[in-house]
C-alpha cells in the first residue's frame, strides 16, 4: 500500500451544511462536503467532463455535477448515474474531524507535482484509484 498522509484541510464552519467547497491541497483540488453528521471528500473533477463537483447539489450521500447532472457517490467516488458512466469514478479520500478541523488522508505520491512523480508511484496510484466496481470484479476473479 502506498504511503498516505493526514492533512488538516479546513475548519468545519467553512463548509456550510449540505454544501461543498473546493479545497486546494498542494497540487490537488478536492471537493469537501458537509453532510451534517459527517464530512466527505472526493476529487473536484467530474469523471465525465471535469465539472467542479464542489459546486454540485447534494442528494443523500451523493453529489450531482452542475454541468451535466452526473451523480457521484461521495462515499466511494463511483459514478452512479448515468448508467453509461458506471465503472468510472473519482478518488474518495478518508476524512476525520478533530477540534473543529476536517483532516483528509491523501496518498503522499499525489502531493508531488505531476512532473516529479516517479514511474512506479504512478502505477501504484492507478491501482489504488481503481473504482470499487472494478475492484470487486477483480476480487471475484481472484
Amino acid at each position, binding site marked *: 500500500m502506498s504511503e498516505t*498522509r493526514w*492533512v*488538516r*484541510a*479546513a*475548519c468545519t*464552519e*467553512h*463548509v*456550510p*451544511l*449540505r*454544501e461543498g*467547497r*473546493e*479545497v*486546494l*491541497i*498542494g497540487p490537488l*483540488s478536492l471537493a*469537501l462536503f458537509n453532510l451534517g453528521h459527517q464530512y466527505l471528500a472526493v476529487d473536484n473533477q467530474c469523471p465525465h*467532463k*471535469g*465539472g*467542479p463537483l464542489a*459546486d*454540485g*447539489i*447534494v*442528494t*443523500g450521500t451523493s453529489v*450531482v455535477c*452542475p*454541468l451535466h*447532472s452526473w451523480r457521484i457517490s461521495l462515499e466511494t467516488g463511483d459514478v452512479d448515474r448515468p448508467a453509461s458512466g458506471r465503472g468510472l469514478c473519482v478518488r474518495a479520500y478518508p476524512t476525520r474531524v478533530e477540534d473543529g*478541523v476536517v483532516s483528509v488522508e*491523501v496518498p*503522499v505520491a499525489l*502531493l*508531488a507535482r505531476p512532473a516529479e512523480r516517479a514511474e512506479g508511484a504512478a502505477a501504484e496510484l492507478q491501482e489504488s484509484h481503481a473504482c470499487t466496481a472494478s475492484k470487486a470484479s477483480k476480487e471475484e476473479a481472484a
Partner: protein
Amino acid sequence: MKRLVVVGNGMAGMACLEQILKHQPRYQVTVFGDETHVNYNRIMLSSVLAGEKAADDIVINPVEWYQRQSIDLRVGVRIVDVDAEAKTVTGADGSVTPYDTLLLATGSSAFMPPIEGLHTDGVLAFRTLDDTREMLRRARPGLKAVVIGGGLLGLEAARGLQVQGCHVTVVHLASTLMERQLDPDGGQYLVGKIQDMGMQVLLGRTTTAILGDGHVEGVALSDDTCLDAELVVVAAGIRPNVELGLKAGLDVTRGIVVNDYMETSDPDIFAVGECVEHRGVCYGLVAPLFEQGKVLAATMTGNRGPTYTGTVPAAKLKIMGVDVFSAGDWSEQHAEPVRFEDRALGIYKKLTVRDGKLAGVILVGDTSDSHRYMDWLRTDADISGQRRHLLFPPPSADGGLDVASMADTATVCGCVGGSKGTIIAAIHEQGVNTMSQLKECTRASTSCGSCTALCQDLLRAVAPEFEDERKKVICACLPYAEDRLREILRSQRLKSVQEVLEIYGNGLGCEVCKPALSYMLDMLWCGDHDEDRSARYINDRVHANIQKDGSFSVIPRIRGGVTSPDELRRIADVADKYHVPMVKITGSQRIDLLGIKKADLPKVWADLGMPSGQAYTKGVRMVKTCVGTEFCRFGTQDSTAAGVEMERRFEQLFTPHKVKMATVGCPRNCAEATVKDIGLIGIEGGWQVVVGGAAGKSVRKADLLVTVETTEQALEASEVFFQYYREQANYLERTYDFVERLGIEKVRKETVYAPEAVQQGLIERLRKSKAKATDAWLEGREPRTAAQFEPLHAMETVTI
C-alpha cells in the same frame, strides 16, 4: 360520372360533402362560395375577434383538402340563379354550370333591421371572416362602439370589441339579454355579468337612426336619446338565404322546406343547414347542421333510410367568465319548474320537467352540469327517480362516475358529433393517450371546445397510459403534484426546504426537487422564507452562470438595453483588468463577460458598479425595447421608457422559469414582443399586452391578454399576469407552456378580467415580494455563506 354542384362553402355544405364523399367518392364536385376563403369554422369568429385565435386557426378544410378530393373550388363566385328545368346554375360572373345533383347550402345572412343611415361608413354586420377582419381593423383602445342586438352573436361581438380596448354599449330591443335562450330572471343575471365586465347595457330600446355625415358619429334611440359611436355592429339576428330555392321553384316558407330524409320538393335539388326549414323550424346553430348533413349524405348517395327528426335547440355563450347555457323548451307552461339561484354567487339554474321528463334547462353562472342535462334531453330520459338530484348531482363515489354513468350513445362532442362510444372505440383502437391525439383522430373538442373536460375524463377513465401532465409529481423524493404541494406548504406554514423534505418527502431531496421547493417557498412567502443555499443550483449560490470549464459568465443589468458611455467604459475596464476571454453582445440587448473565475466575481461586480442582470437564474431576465416615439419616425408609444420601467418593476424576482419581455412602439415589432413571455405592443392610442410567446426551443406567437389605453394600465396588466404565472405555473414551466396548458381564456378570466379584489391580491403579493428582493450582487460585499466565492486552502503546507 355525375356532376354535383354545391352552392355554399360554409360549415353545413362542407360537413355534408365530407359525408357524401365517404359514401360515394364518384361525384365530380364543384363548390361555389361567395366568400373568398376556404371553409372555416364560423362559430369561432368571436374567438378571432377576441384575439384568441388567428384566422388561420379556424380553417376547417385547407385548399389541399379540396385538391385531394379533386373538388373544383370556385371561391368569390356568388350564384345568382338556378334553372331547375335546364339543370344549370348561373354565377354573378356570368358563368353557367350544369349539374346532375344540386346541393344548396347557402346558409343565412345577417338581418339588417330597417334603420335610417344603415349604409354609413363604420356600420358593420358580424357574420363573416371579412366582417371580423374589418372590425379588428377599426377597433382600437378607447373607440366608442355600439352593438345593436343583445343575443348570442351580439354579446360575443361586444366582448370581442371590448378585449380590443373599445368602450362598448349593447343596445337591445327586449327587456333582458338573450331572451330567446333565457327567461327574464336568467336574463337579468346575464345583464349583471355583462355590466360587471365593464360594458354598458341599454334594454327595451330600438335604434331609430345611425347619425353621422359620411362616417358614423352616433346612434339615435327610440327613447329620444343619442349615443356617441365611432363603430356600430349590427347583430340583430339572421335570415335564411332562400332566394335560390325560390328561383328553383322549391317549396319555401321561412326556409327551404325539407322532409325527414332532407329532401326538397325537387328530386335533384337538396338543401342543408341554416337555409332549410324542417318541421317548421329553421336552425341557426351548429349541431343541427352536422346531424342534417349525415342524413342528407345517406339520402343523396342511394342509402335513403336514416331520418332527421329535429335537434334539441341548445346554445352556449362563448364569453369567458360568463357561463350561459340553454337548451330545450324552458317555458313553464304545463311544466314544473325547478329553480336555484344565488345572487351573491351569480348563479341561476332552472329546469322544466314535463311528464317526468326534462323539457328544458337554463344555466347562468355555472354550466358544469350542461352535459348531464343535454343527455336527458336527447334521450328523452325518464327522470322521475332523480327528482331529488336534479339541480345537484348526488356526490359521486369517484371522479370517473359521471362519465361512467353516461350511455355509450350519449353525445360527448356536440359540434363534431362524437358519442361516448365512438370516442372510447378510438381510444382503444388507435392507442390514444393524450388530449391532442384524441383531437387528431376523432376531431372531438376541436370546434367550440366546451367538451374538453368531458373528453379528459373519458381519457382518464379509459386510456391505459393516460397521464395528466398537470398531475405529474416533481420527483420520487417528494411524491406530490405541484399544485397540491403549494397548498401543503401554505396551509402547514412550512418555510424551509429541509423541513418539507423531512415531513413530506424522503428527507434527502435531489437536484430536481430542491431548487423547485426553493422557488415555491420564496414565492409563497413573498421572500419571507428560510433561504437555504444548499438547495439552490450553483448559479443561484454565486449569482453567475456556470460555463463548461467551471468559469462563470457575468451579465450586468442594462434596463431596456439603454446604457451610457460611462457604463460601457467600466465594462471595458473590467474586461481588461480580469483578462476576460470573450465580451459578447447577447440576444437580449445586454453585454456578456465570459470566462470569469468564481473567486473574481465579487471584485468584478464591485468594479462594474451595476446590478445583477439575473442571466443565470430562473427569474426576470430583461425587457428588450425599440426606440419608440423618442427617435423612431413610426413610433406610436414611448416603448423605451415603458420597457425600462417594466424591468424596474420585475427585476430581482424569481419565477418558475426564466421570463423575457419586450416593449415595442408600434406593430412593426422591432424588439420582437410577440415572441416574448410578456410583450407590450404600442398601437395608436394604447397598448396590446401579449403573453406566452416563445422564440427558443419552441416558437410560439404570444396570445393577446388585453388591450389598454395607458402605459400604467399596460404595466399593471403585465404585473397581474406575471404574479399569476409565478403562483400557478409548475416549476420549469415557461409561460408558453403555461398559457397553452391553461388556455388564454382561463388566463384572462383569472387575471385581467378577474374581480378587482383578486387582481389587487396578485399585485399586493407581487409588491410584497418585490419589497423583500434585493440585488444579488450585493453579496459580493457581504457574502451569505462561508467561503461563498473563494476556494479553501489546506491549513498546513504539504509540498514535498
